[in-house]
């Protein structure tokens, strides 16, 4: 069937959604076009392309892109394919080049996408006068916020800042503020987890604060209360982090959720010390060697009051719709790459906060490994559940998916809406945005 705007509207009600939003291949194709290609999607960080010729490749859903810094210092984002026959022009994930040359017939392109050379150009009928038409195709929009690079494949209704919004951009600000030198860089590779289910399960799960105490009770019991000690005498930070799943239902519920315009949302931290008034240590349950020096360096940079604010920033996940997770305390960004209605990849990256002790970076690496490696001690269980939901919903055993938890207890605020931790308000907010985007006809 071809989905009309009115039919799409019937798929989402305030307290439940039709199973087909997760399973219908045609709806998925519409989602790519209307949700993924018309939104600002995170492409990377400027630290991945500092000097002229520096490039990295990335993806928006199925599309392979190159982001490269040209000799004039400007960033460009292209589809990674030759304008001649469509072969990939760049096979490396990152590096530095003077030009991109297609391996097939040696068409070559500058780092601004301009055609540099086409062997035997005169033999191609009428090509020489039109050679400029054969430049590497740029994506429609490219912009960045304080070094975080976003792009979109189609024109977007709003600019980058307006689309993401100030209440969400603060998560990026906080990352930079946590660096004693005021600079951050992506470093240490990436984790890639794959699961055989719809992309939306992950953006819902990452803000579902009822499930950790239940689904992840296995790791809490395996830890058994005592966080083991590392060879350097510090508590194992990955295990300390995972033990946070074991806080009480009441503690999870006490975490505040925010639902923001544009489908974005955020949650408070669950890593705070018991006494949040404890000056600089409010959000520093995770310990590392050099922490005292780090704190005093931040005070030197910001002054005491601002440093308290920076370290006390009460946020765990901030989720930018449709696919980006930001976590300043864990120095982490993750994004989703949907490749089919039932195939999704989650890519995770760690930032090095310049001027901070290297041990702090090592802690961030360990936490990403523990939580988001394909061998994770927690998300392997989440993804098993996603795959099982996908099977059930695909074969039609469950026609409607319930999203009614806390429907009548969410509250309006000047910036959006708030609710207690176990409320499903953020998922309803995601679906409101989904319907809005999906109903905008091509």
């Amino acid at each position, binding site marked *: 069937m071809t989905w009309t705007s009115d039919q799409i509207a019937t798929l989402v009600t305030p307290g439940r959604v039709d199973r087909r939003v997760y399973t219908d291949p045609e709806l998925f194709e519409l989602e790519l076009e209307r949700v993924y290609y018309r939104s600002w999607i995170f492409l990377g960080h400027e630290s991945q392309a500092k000097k002229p010729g520096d490039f990295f490749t990335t993806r928006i859903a199925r599309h392979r892109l190159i982001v490269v810094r040209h000799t004039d210092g400007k960033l460009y984002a292209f589809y990674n394919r030759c304008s001649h026959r469509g072969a990939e022009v760049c096979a490396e994930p990152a590096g530095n080049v003077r030009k991109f040359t297609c391996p097939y017939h040696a068409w070559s392109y500058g780092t601004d996408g301009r055609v540099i050379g086409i062997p035997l150009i005169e033999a191609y009928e009428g090509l020489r006068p039109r050679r400029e038409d054969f430049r590497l195709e740029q994506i429609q929009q490219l912009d960045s916020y304080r070094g975080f690079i976003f792009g979109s494949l189609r024109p977007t209704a709003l600019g980058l800042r307006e689309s993401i919004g100030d209440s969400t951009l603060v998560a990026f600000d906080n990352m930079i503020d946590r660096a004693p030198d005021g600079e951050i860089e992506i470093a240490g590779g990436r984790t890639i987890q794959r699961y055989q289910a719809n992309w939306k399960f992950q953006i819902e799960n990452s803000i579902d604060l009822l499930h950790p105490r239940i689904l992840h009770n296995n790791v809490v019991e395996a830890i058994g209360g005592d966080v083991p000690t590392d060879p350097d005498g510090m508590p194992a930070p990955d295990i300390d982090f995972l033990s946070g799943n074991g806080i009480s239902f009441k503690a999870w519920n006490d975490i505040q959720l925010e639902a923001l315009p544009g489908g974005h949302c955020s949650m408070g931290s669950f890593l705070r010390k018991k006494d949040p008034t404890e000056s600089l240590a409010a959000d520093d349950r995770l310990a590392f060697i050099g922490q005292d020096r780090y704190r005093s360096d931040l005070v030197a940079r910001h002054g005491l009051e601002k440093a308290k604010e920076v370290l006390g920033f009460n946020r765990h996940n901030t989720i930018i719709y449709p696919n980006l997770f930001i976590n300043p305390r864990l120095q982490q960004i993750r994004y989703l790459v949907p490749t089919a209605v039932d195939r999704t*990849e989650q890519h995770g990256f760690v930032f090095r906060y310049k001027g901070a002790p290297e041990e702090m970076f090592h802690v961030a690496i360990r936490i990403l490994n523990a939580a988001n490696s394909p061998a994770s001690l927690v998300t392997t269980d989440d993804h098993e559940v996603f795959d099982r939901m996908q099977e059930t919903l695909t074969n039609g055993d469950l026609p409607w998916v319930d999203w009614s938890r806390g429907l009548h207890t969410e509250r309006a605020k000047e910036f959006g809406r708030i609710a207690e931790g176990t409320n499903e308000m953020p998922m309803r907010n995601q679906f409101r945005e989904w319907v809005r985007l999906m109903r905008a006809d091509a």
Partner: protein
Amino acid sequence: MSLKIERRPSEEIEQFLFAEARLLDERQFIEWAELFTDDGLYWVPATWDQANGESHVSLIHERKPVLRIRVKRLIHEGTVAQWPVSRTQHHLTNISEQASSSDEVKVSCSLLFTEFRRSDQRIFSADVRYNLWRTAEGLRIARKEVRLINAEAESGHLRLSIPF
């Protein structure tokens, strides 16, 4: 060109590696973790040529105290990633010894790891390197490094539960 010819390790070392693999295939995970020295490291790099696991992400980079928690979780009844459990076979070949002293042996092998779960069977291939220590309790693993040939698969890996 000089071809590097290594030695076949003693039967004791070979049988130790087979016994270790058997513990995994028989799901004796708690006993498997106990084969490591107190700070023993189990490392599955996220890229083929990865230099270290401290400043680069890994699939797994854990010392014994964390490994113990990993295996306790693996056999926990609430671990849905193991409903039903995986069935595995570790196939070890090309076992050779790089160095040995009275208290340490460095040995490597090629590993074919086959896993069956629900309706899917999959295969991993790896270059595995061990540092084994001779202790009063017998041979112990001070370091086990598993270099998967598809470590950095472009589209990632489906969940990895059973140790290689």
